[in-house]
């Protein structure tokens, strides 16, 4: 007999209001019992609802906002709603990509939290039928003066490396930002990109009377029980009680799963009706979502589910988030083909249930029915919530008092380069295998990573981006800039943006100011995506990023992919040698709100966000694209955090070049973060051709040389000093802080 059923009867659940502890509200319980079931749900059933109706699985708080994303575009084969979105890249090939957050688990247990974040997103990609070809990680931590944050950074990076390196998918890029708002609530967002033939696309679908449900992979254990619900609640510093909610990863098992599932998709595509990974809310979410797609019924015998521990209850089996498990729907009669492939890979695969036509979600254990509810009630009948929007005070009456002086621009630049957000992340990305699969052309450390597509002339550029300081000062415009800057990274690498995914990391949606930030930044993101024809093809929402009522800065992370039609156009950010002409593209204003210089000088982000003109941005991007296509450039680098001074150092550092030139900007403007700007270096022989295209948009500011000195005449002073010292500050900034 099943213990928990003995312990809590449906009446107990009602009178003791046990559903509240599971994260369901009174209203939601009433909808379930009075409208959907017309009876009191038992313990297993209410557990399933709590997982499936959590924000993490249902997007009940964010759905009304997410509908505002622009998701069209001629390349879209699969938009939001499946495991991951799919884009047409021509020649009957397609790419699949998605990003996912693993913020809460990574705070509780950073190594496993980050590792299983990597594992989870990889499963989303190969369950679509694609071979995972690259991943990127967008990370955010509190200040490194705090030992806990150093520990978190070390362990998260080790977790990503431990999983990603073993499974053989190159980790090619990402970003790391440091800000005190992430104290106690780091962000770990992982993006994965896959490649496939369009004919091989699979969906997470269970349909067809009497077709079989096959479970494959790791056994189900008591790890991560109802983790989806855990991710959808606020944090307390006293998080030790949550430790059991974090899962443990096994990248070796996942490697076998990837290989076996791709082999099945290749050799037995007709037998495979659908496939989905068991991610958040484990077995229940995968099976219910697959069945709900066609309003199928499904009947699963829980006695057949491989279990790692004895005496697991239906609630535990269904809501376990044990890693490395997949669920397949296979045509009746074809099961052996599939089971044989898994056997070859030494993977445990079992038929655990059948699809039927009665639209009920039915579970049995020990010959008893332990759950019998309408399939769709788990997936489609979730109430959605719109929230009040309140514009935060800081946006209504912005504090515009920030001002500063620059005495010695060289000294200021030197300090800025060693700031953790700006300085080189080499010590981190050197721990990631970025070259396995032998397709990586440009790895971490340039504006975007580039992976070629074997057997074609094409390549993919990929990047993750978000400046949370900007979003904090202006959620709409900050959202716009997040997309614009990601696009600038793609353009600077020789690509054309073709689509985005995102992780929307925000505070508690019940807080009207957080919800305002979410809604506004989604609008900003969507508007620019539409303008540059880069649709939103999927994403992930992580709300409740608060610790003890202290919210993170709004962080809508953008993961963007661009297509490079001809790999001869791949370009990197470093000048290649001396005597290259260096141009600044785009106008520079006194834009210091939300800048790194502001953060460094006053450790506070204030002001009205800088002027941003999306049309100007697109104009500049198109010009840069044109000169790259015509092979007129040696290097292209986008200007971002830290402004011109930082970008110039980054342009010169790799080949240890010097620079001499002159620009009509003030000392302060060397650190301005005006958007829509690039630095480009070209061979002097191409000067007239280059300038004929660029006209007034490019400003020749100087020439590279080999004397390791940066010498830039400004309108009110001079940037003058040793290049190698700048390089040293930039290279050692992060490592010094980690000591």
């Amino acid at each position, binding site marked *: 007999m099943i213990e928990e059923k003995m312990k809590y009867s449906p009446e107990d659940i009602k009178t003791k209001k046990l559903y509240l502890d599971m994260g369901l509200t009174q209203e939601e319980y009433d909808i379930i019992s009075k409208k959907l079931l017309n009876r009191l749900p038992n313990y297993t059933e209410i557990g399933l609802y709590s997982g499936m109706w959590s924000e993490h699985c249902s997007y009940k708080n964010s759905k009304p906002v997410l509908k505002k994303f622009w998701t069209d575009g001629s390349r879209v084969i699969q938009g939001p709603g499946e495991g991951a979105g799919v884009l047409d890249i021509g020649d009957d090939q397609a790419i699949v990509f998605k990003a996912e957050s693993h913020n809460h688990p990574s705070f509780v247990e950073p190594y496993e939290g980050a590792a299983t974040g990597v594992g989870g997103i990889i499963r989303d990609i190969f369950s679509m039928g694609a071979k995972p070809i690259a991943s990127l990680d967008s990370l955010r931590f509190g200040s490194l003066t705090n030992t806990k944050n150093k520990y978190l950074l070390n362990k998260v990076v080790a977790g990503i490396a*431990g999983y990603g390196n073993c499974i053989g998918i190159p980790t090619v890029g990402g970003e790391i930002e440091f800000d005190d708002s992430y104290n106690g609530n780091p962000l770990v967002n992982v993006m994965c990109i896959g490649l496939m033939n369009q004919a091989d696309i699979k969906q997470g679908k269970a349909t067809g009377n009497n077709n079989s449900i096959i479970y494959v992979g790791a056994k189900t254990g008591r790890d991560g029980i109802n983790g989806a619900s855990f991710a959808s609640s606020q944090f307390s510093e006293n998080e030790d009680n949550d430790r059991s909610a974090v899962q443990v990863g096994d990248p070796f098992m996942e490697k076998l799963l990837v290989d076996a599932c791709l082999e099945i998709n290749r050799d037995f595509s007709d037998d495979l009706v659908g496939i989905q990974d068991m991610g958040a809310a484990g077995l229940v979410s995968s099976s219910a979502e697959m069945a709900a797609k066609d309003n199928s019924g499904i009947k699963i015998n829980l006695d057949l589910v491989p279990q790692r521990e004895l005496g697991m209850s239906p609630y535990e089996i269904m809501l376990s988030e044990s890693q490395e498990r997949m669920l397949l729907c296979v045509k009746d009669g074809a099961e052996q083909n599939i089971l044989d492939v898994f056997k070859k890979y030494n993977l445990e695969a079992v038929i655990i249930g059948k699809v039927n036509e009665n639209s009920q979600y039915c579970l049995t254990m020990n010959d008893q029915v332990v759950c019998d509810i309408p399939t769709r009630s788990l997936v489609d009948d979730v109430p959605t919530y719109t929230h009040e929007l309140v514009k935060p005070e800081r946006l209504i009456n912005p504090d515009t008092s920030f001002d500063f002086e620059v005495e010695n621009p060289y000294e200021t630049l030197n300090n800025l380069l060693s700031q953790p957000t700006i300085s080189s992340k080499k010590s981190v990305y050197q*721990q990631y295998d*970025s*070259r396995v699969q032998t397709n990586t052309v440009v790895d971490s450390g340039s504006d975007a990573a580039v992976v070629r597509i074997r057997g074609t002339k094409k390549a993919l550029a990929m990047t993750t981006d978000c400046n949370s300081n900007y979003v904090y000062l202006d959620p709409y415009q900050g959202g716009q800039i997040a997309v614009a800057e990601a696009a600038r990274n793609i353009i600077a690498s020789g690509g054309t943006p073709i689509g985005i995914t995102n992780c929307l990391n925000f505070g508690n949606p019940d807080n009207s100011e957080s919800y305002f930030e979410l809604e506004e930044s989604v609008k900003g993101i969507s508007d620019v995506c539409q303008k540059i024809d880069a649709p939103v093809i999927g994403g992930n929402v992580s709300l409740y990023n608060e610790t003890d009522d202290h919210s993170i800065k709004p962080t809508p992370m953008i993961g963007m992919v661009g297509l490079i039609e001809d790999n001869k156009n*791949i370009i990197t950010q470093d000048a290649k040698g001396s005597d290259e002409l260096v141009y600044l593209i785009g106008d520079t204003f006194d834009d210091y709100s939300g800048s790194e210089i502001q953060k460094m000088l006053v450790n506070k982000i204030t002001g009205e966000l800088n002027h941003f003109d999306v049309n100007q941005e697109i104009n500049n991007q198109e010009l840069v694209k044109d000169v790259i296509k015509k092979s007129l450039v040696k290097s292209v680098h986008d200007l971002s955090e830290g402004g011109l001074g930082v970008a110039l150092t980054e342009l010169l550092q790799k080949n240890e070049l010097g620079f001499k030139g002159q620009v009509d900007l003030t000392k302060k403007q060397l650190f301005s973060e005006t958007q829509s700007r690039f630095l480009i270096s070209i061979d002097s022989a191409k000067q007239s051709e280059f300038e004929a295209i660029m006209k007034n948009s490019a400003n020749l500011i100087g020439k590279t040389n080999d004397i390791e000195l940066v010498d830039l005449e400004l309108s009110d002073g001079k940037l003058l000093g040793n290049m190698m010292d700048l390089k040293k500050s930039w290279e050692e900034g992060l490592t010094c802080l980690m000591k």
Partner: protein
Amino acid sequence: MNFGIISFPGSNCDWDLYYAIKDELNESCKMISSDETNLDEFDVILIPGGFSYGDYLRSGAIGSLASAMQAVKKIAKEGKIIIGICNGFQILTESNLLPGSLMVNEQPEFISKWQNLKVENNQTIFSNKFKKNQIVKMPIAHGEGNYYCDEETLKELESNHQIVFRYEDNPNGSVNDIAGITNKEGNILGMMPHPERAVETILGGIDGLTLFQSLKNTNSEVIK
């Protein structure tokens, strides 16, 4: 030449090697299951990098017990060419086909980067297309590449000229900067750097291809 690549569960550089041999070296190449017991048809056996059997227990330890490794031992004795790269090198030391062992890096983190190597011995079947003391560049990517052996073995390796590649600016703490060694007979090579990742200009370098081309250089007099 007939190349065979042993694919263990958890190998992840097997296909990289396949493309390197087939598309860049233009030689025939076949994937082999680690359950295979007969390797007689092959001239060269490649043991790829990755995490065979998850590298649980100890890197390469379980891999060394696979059936295919018994077959490798047999054809190695017959003088066939064997190359183990990264995890493949670990499997070869675990199988006692090469001396010494590979420990956790001195800085115990995984390290992945382009690495300069010095060609210490260009008189081997693996390195005859390089110049002696030539500096070549190949990616490394490992957490356990810190080569160690006892002093007596080290002396032997040095005096027999079994050290083919040494690291410039030793990244992992290996004794005498050892990056790659052969057996005494000179038909087995183990190395931590990945030559298969350096076979095309677009990937950043072609020094790895030169290594594979050395195998085809039948005119060379191999001196030990």
